[in-house]
């Protein structure tokens, strides 16, 4: 019998840890019993559809939202008092609820720097050059992509141990996305940082990710190394008879299925060799097996009935 889909990581040094983190609004649960474990130096992709609880989780990690129960710890400190957490954190919000639109971009960056004693002015200037920012332009006049670059600069220039990026490339044009990704890659190469990215544009961040967490309806449905996910979750194309009776799900964790009655395309969790053997034993001919990208993997994990 294949092992269950993991939701915990092996013990190691963690940059972010939550224990039973729960947020309820009356009877509605936004996040339930979240045990997030993000290793130090990891690039952690937090995946999930809109409304899965990603932003709520971020708010609790930053100390902006009081959990109904459970606790959160970031870079060795608890999320309350919030200042202690936020000074160790760089944050790019999902929405452009930008600060002080009347301010010139250069002034805004200088103002922001005043809050962070660790601010690296030389690095900020380098980033500003790389982003081609125009300090004399008012922040409110910037395009969405330009504003995003300013936010990214403000999140990176104090070289925080933890970065929280909430949909960092959402709404950006391809050129702006590319710039954001390039700067992020350069930053990670130069400074040891733990990154948590909440996104539904998985393919953009896939190349960075080494850990993946999948949130569905406020619950963590999977949490593991990306390598584990891609090794264990495979798509099998099967040739079967029309009256074929598939094995029970208890024997073979089927996450997603489509295809035709004679050609089934199944996404199954488990070691490829064992899954293939079981399918063959059940009378199916395994025509091909392929790995899934993270987008497809997240979709498959969220397609499980109990995760919806």
């Amino acid at each position, binding site marked *: 019998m294949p092992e269950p889909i993991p939701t915990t990581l092996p013990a190691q040094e963690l940059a972010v840890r939550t224990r039973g983190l729960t947020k309820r609004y009356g009877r509605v649960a936004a996040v339930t019993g979240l045990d997030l474990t993000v290793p130090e130096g990891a690039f952690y992709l937090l995946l999930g559809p809109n409304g899965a609880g990603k932003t709520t989780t971020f708010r609790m990690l*930053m100390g902006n939202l009081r959990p109904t129960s459970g606790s959160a710890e970031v870079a060795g400190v608890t999320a309350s008092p919030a*200042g202690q957490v*936020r000074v160790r954190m760089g944050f790019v*919000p999902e929405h452009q*609820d930008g*600060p002080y*639109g009347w*301010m010139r971009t250069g002034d805004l960056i200088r103002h*922001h720097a005043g809050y962070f004693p*660790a601010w690296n002015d030389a690095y900020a200037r380098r980033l500003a050059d790389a982003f081609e920012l125009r300090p004399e332009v008012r922040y409110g006049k910037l395009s969405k992509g330009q504003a995003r670059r300013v936010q990214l600069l403000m999140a990176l220039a104090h070289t925080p141990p933890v970065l929280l990026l909430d949909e960092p490339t959402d709404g950006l044009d391809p050129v702006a996305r590319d710039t954001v990704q390039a700067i992020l890659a350069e930053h990670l190469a130069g400074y040891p940082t733990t990154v948590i990215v909440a996104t539904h544009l998985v393919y953009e961040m896939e190349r960075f990710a080494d850990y993946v967490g999948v949130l569905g309806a406020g619950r963590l449905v999977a949490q593991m190394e990306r390598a584990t996910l891609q090794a264990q979750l495979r798509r099998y194309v099967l040739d079967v008879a029309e009256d074929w009776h598939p094995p029970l799900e208890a024997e073979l964790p089927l996450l997603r299925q489509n295809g035709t009655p004679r050609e089934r395309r199944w996404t199954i969790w488990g070691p490829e060799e064992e899954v293939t053997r079981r399918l063959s034993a059940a009378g199916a001919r395994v025509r091909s097996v392929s790995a899934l990208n993270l987008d497809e993997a997240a979709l498959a994990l969220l397609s499980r009935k109990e995760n919806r």
Partner: protein
Amino acid sequence: MSTHVVPGFAAVLRLQIHLLWKSRAALFILLMLPGALLATAAAAAYWMPGAFTGREFELIAMLPFVILMGGAWGILVWRDEPPSKRGYHRSLPVDVAAHHLARVAAGAVWLLPALLLYFAAGIFVTALRGDAGAVTAAGPTLWLGYLLAALILYGMTAALATAVEKPLSWIVWGYVALAALATLVAMAGTPDTFRLWAGRLINRPYGLGWAVGGGLEIARARVTAQAPPAGAWFPVALGWLFVSTLLVFAAAHWRRVRT
């Protein structure tokens, strides 16, 4: 040693003082000065002739503008930043309540020199009219009274603007609601109790009106060599300043963490 340390309150206060300057809100309060002065002089010269004896006129006419400056400034310090648009604050390494307090304190820092300039201008105009003696006779009580009046009003409106989206609407509708309540009470035929409590809130010996205008009344009595009004004013003004400060603290802590 980690350099990721939380900035102290003094550092945040400095940032907020500078921010108010950059936002040109501080410039606004400085621009209010010539306007207020002009209005004071105009009122003195034309609008209320005979309402007061000539000597103390300019000094007395300053009170409404002092109140206006304090009250308006309390709302202006949060110009374009109602509570729903303070998401940026929640990404900074400062407790939201401390951030709010720093902003209100920064506003007070700008209000004080603006008031001092206004006072200086008032004294200058009075002296130009040949009434310098009135300034001397009024003594420091007048200026202390004005200062406390402005700070009390500033604290109250700043608390409101810290806590609610549309402070001006609250002021207008609050006034309408009170007027309606007063009318209803009067129609119900039990106005005495209402009047008693309203009077206690406004008049001597402990009311807000006395706290705001008491210093002026005392100074005016000195200028006109009349008997000073009964009742202690200074402790009452300090008490209302304390209430005003408490309101600011309460507003600053209001939903500092979303629940």
